[in-house]
C-alpha cells in the first residue's frame, strides 16, 4: 500500500535526496534557509545539509539568477527559488539575456544546469503579484526549458530530471496544489518508474477517453479530471492529457491523443491571447488536420491581470467553462 504525500513534501524529499547525492547542488533564495521557505518546501534542508548548501539570499531576484549563472560557471548545480511567480519579473533580464543564452554565447563551453523553482499560478486568493502564469513567456525564450508538475509523484520525479539536465529549466510549482495529498510510491521506485517510462518532454494521459482530449498542466489537470467525471455522467468520454513539460512540448503525445479522440480543448490559467493554447492549437492543426471533427477550443484566463479575491474564480477556467467548450466540440457541424 503506497503512502500519500503532499506536493510540498514530495519536492522537499526530492531536494533532500538531490543535496545528498550531489555535493555541487545548492539550494538558495529568499527565506529558504532558516524559515524553510514561505511554503515550507525547503523545510529542514538547511539544518540537515548546512548553510553552505542551503542558504538565504538578500531580497533581489535579478541577483539570485545572476548569482546562479556565476555559480554554474564555477561548476556548481544551482537550484534557486524565486519566492512567487510575480517576483520573477525583476529577474527577467538575467533569465532571458543571460541564463538562457550563456550556453549559446559560449558555444557550449559554459553549460547552465540551473533549475529555477518558481511557485506559480493562481487559486489561493493571493495579493497582487503573488499569482501569475508566466509559462508562455518562458516557453517563448530560446534556451529555457519549462516543466510543470500536477501531482506529488510527478513533482518529485520531474524536479530530479530538471536538476540532472544540463540546461536551465523553469520548474513551475502550482501553489494551489502544494497541500493536496496523493498516492506516492517509495521514492526510489517512483524515480525508476518515471525515468524508465517518461523521459524529458513526455506527457501523460492521466485519464483515457474516446470523445475529446483536454490538454492541461499544473492545477488545471485536477480541474479537467473533475470535468471528465461530470461529462461521463452524460455519456461523454473525456481524455485528459497532462503535458508535464511545456518545453519541450510533447508533439507526438498531443497528436496521438487528439488523433484518436478527434476533438481537443486546451485549458490554461494564463491569458488567452498569445498563450500556449495558441501554440498547442496550431500544432494540433498541423498534425491532426484530417482527423479533427471540430476546431480546437481554448479555455483560458481572460486578457486581464490576475484579479483579486472572488473575481479570481471567474478568471481561472472553471468546470462550467471547460464543460461548455467540450460541448462546443461535440456539437460542431461543418458549415
Amino acid at each position, binding site marked *: 500500500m503506497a503512502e500519500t504525500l503532499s506536493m510540498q513534501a514530495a519536492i522537499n524529499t526530492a531536494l533532500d535526496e538531490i543535496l545528498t547525492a550531489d555535493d555541487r547542488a545548492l539550494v538558495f533564495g529568499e527565506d529558504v534557509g532558516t524559515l524553510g521557505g514561505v511554503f515550507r518546501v525547503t523545510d529542514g534542508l538547511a539544518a540537515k545539509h548546512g548553510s553552505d548548501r542551503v542558504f538565504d539570499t538578500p531580497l533581489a531576484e535579478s541577483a539570485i539568477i545572476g*548569482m546562479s549563472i556565476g555559480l554554474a560557471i564555477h561548476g*556548481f548545480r544551482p537550484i534557486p527559488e524565486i519566492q512567487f511567480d510575480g517576483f520573477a519579473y525583476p529577474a527577467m533580464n538575467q533569465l532571458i539575456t543571460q541564463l538562457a543564452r550563456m550556453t549559446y554565447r559560449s558555444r557550449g563551453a559554459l553549460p547552465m544546469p540551473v533549475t529555477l523553482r518558481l511557485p506559480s499560478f493562481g487559486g489561493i486568493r493571493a495579493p497582487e503579484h503573488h499569482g501569475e502564469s508566466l509559462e508562455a513567456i518562458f516557453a517563448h525564450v*530560446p534556451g529555457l526549458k519549462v516543466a510543470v508538475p500536477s501531482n506529488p509523484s510527478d513533482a518529485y520525479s520531474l524536479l530530479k530530471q530538471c536538476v540532472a539536465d544540463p540546461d536551465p529549466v523553469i520548474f513551475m510549482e502550482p501553489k494551489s496544489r502544494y497541500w493536496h495529498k496523493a498516492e506516492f510510491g517509495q521514492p526510489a521506485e517512483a524515480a525508476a518508474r518515471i525515468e524508465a517510462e517518461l523521459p524529458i518532454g513526455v506527457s501523460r494521459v492521466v485519464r483515457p477517453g474516446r470523445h475529446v482530449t483536454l490538454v492541461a498542466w499544473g492545477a488545471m489537470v485536477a480541474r479537467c479530471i473533475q470535468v471528465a467525471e461530470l461529462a461521463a455522467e452524460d455519456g461523454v468520454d473525456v481524455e485528459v492529457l497532462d503535458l508535464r513539460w511545456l518545453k519541450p512540448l510533447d*508533439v507526438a503525445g498531443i497528436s496521438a491523443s487528439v488523433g484518436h479522440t478527434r476533438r481537443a480543448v486546451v485549458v490554461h490559467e494564463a491569458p488567452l491571447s498569445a498563450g500556449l493554447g495558441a501554440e498547442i492549437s496550431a500544432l494540433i492543426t498541423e498534425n491532426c488536420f484530417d482527423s479533427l471533427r471540430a476546431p480546437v477550443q481554448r479555455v483560458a484566463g481572460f486578457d486581464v491581470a490576475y484579479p483579486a479575491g472572488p473575481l479570481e474564480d471567474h478568471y481561472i477556467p472553471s468546470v462550467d467553462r471547460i464543460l461548455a467548450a467540450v460541448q462546443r466540440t461535440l456539437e460542431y457541424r461543418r458549415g
Partner: protein
Amino acid sequence: MKTDDDTARRLYRLMVTTRALDAEATVMQRQGIIPGYAPLKGQEAAQIGSGAALDLARDFAFPTYREMGVAVAMGVDLIGYFASHHGSWHGGLYDPLASRFAPINAVVAGSVLHAMGWAKGEKLSHGTGVSLAYFGDGASSQGDVHEAMNFAGVDDLPVIFFCQNNGWAISLPTERQVAGGSVAARAAGYGLAAEVIDGNDVVEVFEATNRALQRARSGGGATVIEAMTYRVGPHSTSDDPGRYRSIGEEQSWALLDPIDRLAQQLRAAGADDAFFESARTDARETVETVRTGLVDMTDRPLTELFDFVFTNPTPRLLEQRDAYLSNAYLSNEYASEATHG
C-alpha cells in the same frame, strides 16, 4: 615605483600592443573586414593594469564588450576575441574556461552579477581565487551593479568591482550619470573597500588591483575600484562624438595619454631605443597575425545556428535544424551536413 622595472616594461609592451590592435580594428572596420568595433583608446592603462594583475591559475575576469586590452593582458586568443567584432559569434571564439575570461557580454551590467556568483562559488570551495567584474560609469546606473555589491558585502565575497569611468556613456557625461560624486562612493553603503585611482597610470592600476586581490584572497571581501580614464575615441565605429563633446576636451585628455606617461618613466629609468623599438615590433607582429586571422576567417558552419542553444537540445529544435539544412534551396554542402552531421 614599487612595481619593478621588468613588470613596468611588460605592462608597457601590453599597452603598445593593445593600442596598435585598437587602431587596426578601426581600420579593418573602415575596410569592411569587420562590421563594427568599440574602441578603447585612452583606456589601455586601466585595462592592462587590472588584467595583468590577475593570476590565471585561480582568478576569473568578466568582461563587457570593450575589454580588448584585458584580453591582451590575460593572453586570450585574440583572433577568437575579435571573432565577436568580426560578426562570427557574439561571445567570441576563444575558450572562456581555459582563458579565465567570460564570453564577451553586450548586456550593460549583466555580467557584474556573474562575477559575484562566481566569487560565491569560490568562497564555498574554500579557494583563494578572485573574480573581477568590468563595468563602466554608464553601467553603474543599472540595478544589477547595486545588487551585486550588496550581495558581495553581505557575504564578504572575493570579487573586485572594476569601474572604468571613461567620462562618457555614449553621449551622456559622468556628471549626468553618477549622483553622489563617484561610483566608488557607493561602496561605503555596502561596506566594501573602495579606491578612486588614476586610470591612466598603469602602475597605479596594477598596484591597486593587486591590493584588492590581496584583500579578497585573505578574506577581506570585495573592493570597488574606480579607474578615472577617458574614452578618446567614439563609443563605437558608428558613433560621432563631435555631436556631444568638444575637441578641446579630447585634446586635454591626450596630454594624459597612459602610454606616453609610462614611456617617459621607463626612459628615465634607463629604457633605451631598442626596448621601445622591440615593443613596436612585437605589436606589429601581433596586429599582423590578428589581421590575417580575421581576413581569412570563414563563416561559421550553418549547423551552429542551432547547435548550442541547449546542451541537451529539444526535439523541435532538431527538427527545425534538419528541415532547414536539408532544404533544396541550400547548397549541397549544407544538405550533406544535415545528412551526415
